[in-house]
């Protein structure tokens, strides 16, 4: 098939099929097609391609029933908003903590003291790093930890109405 050398006109052929040729170019295209057998043949081929792409009608009801409901834009939808929220949380949390520490200086001491007295188990990266001796020592330390209350809670006596006592 011979091709026309006028690329601009050839580029307009799909637009002609879809009624999208700009007004200013329509007359020039019509005049070109009158005198160009190659472009007329190309247009006919494009129409064949378009016709060959016919498909059965789509079941739109099925699609609509599968659509999710609109949830609207969530507050944290934007990545920038997520970053901003994280900054606010960190800065706000830190300032609240420091203000509380200013009001109650003992707070920091208490935290430091608790950290120092808390039972510490020295572990490696994983249990595989521990030797048999270390594992035995670890088992003993675990056995020494008391997960139960040291004393039974006191019983709470609730007087019953009308019991007379």
């Amino acid at each position, binding site marked *: *098939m011979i*091709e026309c050398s006028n690329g601009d006109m050839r*580029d307009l052929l*799909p*637009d002609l*099929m*879809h009624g*999208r040729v700009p007004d200013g170019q329509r007359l020039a295209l019509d005049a070109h097609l009158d005198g160009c057998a190659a472009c007329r043949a*190309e247009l006919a*081929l*494009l129409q*064949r*391609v*378009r*016709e*060959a*792409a*016919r*498909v*059965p*009608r*789509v*079941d*739109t009801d*099925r*699609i*609509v029933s*599968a*659509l*999710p409901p*609109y949830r*609207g*834009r969530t507050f944290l*939808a934007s990545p920038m908003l997520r970053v901003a929220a994280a900054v606010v949380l960190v800065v706000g949390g830190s300032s609240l903590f420091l203000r509380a520490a200013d009001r109650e200086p003992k707070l920091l001491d208490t935290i430091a003291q608790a950290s120092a007295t808390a039972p510490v188990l020295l572990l490696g990266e994983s249990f595989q790093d521990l030797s048999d001796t270390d594992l035995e020592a670890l088992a003993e330390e675990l056995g020494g930890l008391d997960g139960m209350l040291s004393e039974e809670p006191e019983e709470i006596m609730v007087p019953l109405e009308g019991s007379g006592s």
Partner: protein
Amino acid sequence: MTDRVRGAGDPQDAELLTRWKAGDQRAASMLVERHADALARFAFSCGARDDSDELVQDTFVRAFASLDGFRGDSSFRTWLFTIERRLLLDRRRAEKRRPPSVEVSEDAAATEYDALDGLVAGESAEQVRAAVGTLTPTQREVFVLRVTEGLSYKEIAEAVGSTEGAARVHYHNALRGIKEFLDD
């Protein structure tokens, strides 16, 4: 060919989207009506012959689930084509991973597909489909969007993530390939 509505760049889409966001379920139906056929043609022409309906549905579901990501830089239809194309690519990748035999390139896959198609191509429409099938996936996408859907090179570039110039080159290479196939 009767398309239900001319969709690309249609300002009615924006209005329908606004109505749907406001809770009007009929607006969703109208949007699906407007664009379902075009998406089905694109899917079918790009090789999704057995499951084009499913692909169209998946495209709409994904689009409506992420509608807030649609900024309106392109037309709604172009955006739908972009989503459908991504789904098509995902399926092609999944299909490539599935067979344990020799890995084939996209071009080779297209050629194999169409050699088979050519055997059964009897009438004109089948011949044309077989010719379109000989194209590489990118050529086929560009050509179908240009000829079947009437998108401009700019819209095609947006849909396939390319440039207008590249889309134009793909279109003309595709057209030349189809002519050669049909002339043989």
